[in-house]
């Protein structure tokens, strides 16, 4: 069963890593950020699978930290994109 979990972890990680092609091709910054967010979620899923398959302590806490960082990264990105975008004047009236 542990082998199944590790194979699933590797498969998910490879899949979301392939999604990083979107970071190269864009076209917009938002598309790039979405690919990074998918990598974050896939990383959390892989870490949880690895934590269950192995006996290494604390891997689940790493996943928890990754979840927190992904949330902050995305929200900070949207905030900064709104103020220096082409419609910055419009952002004032939020």
């Amino acid at each position, binding site marked *: *069963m542990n082998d*199944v*979990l590790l194979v*699933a972890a590797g*498969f*998910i990680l490879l*899949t*979301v890593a*392939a*999604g990083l*092609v*979107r970071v190269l091709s864009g076209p*917009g910054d*938002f*598309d790039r*950020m*979405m*690919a990074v*967010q*998918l990598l974050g*979620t*896939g990383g*959390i*899923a892989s870490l*949880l*699978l690895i934590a*269950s398959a192995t006996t290494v302590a604390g891997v*689940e806490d790493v*996943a*928890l930290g990754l*979840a*927190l960082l*992904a*949330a902050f990264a*995305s*929200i900070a990105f*949207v905030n900064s*994109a*709104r103020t220096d*975008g*082409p*419609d910055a004047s*419009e*952002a004032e009236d939020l």
Partner: protein
Amino acid sequence: MSAALDLFSAAAIGAGAFFFFAGTIGLLRFPNSLTRLHALTKADNLGLGLVVLGLLPRAGSLLDALRLVAIWALVQLSGAATAQLIGRALSRRGAAK
């Protein structure tokens, strides 16, 4: 009983991996940003949700199981907030052609 639980875990984790796969394909192949956002949120919610569901029977204690659910709930909340923020920023920018 244990074999049945293992089968349940493998099925749920397999389904979760499939949703990550489908989300990535959507992110790479869909024509514009809003449809790609749609693909991303499905992978976030269902992919991770099914993986966590599959891992729950394997959790050693109730506390471990609660921690798994808490991680999933945190990703759920941040994913929903981010999708909403990105969607609003995209529509303000008129990128959703």
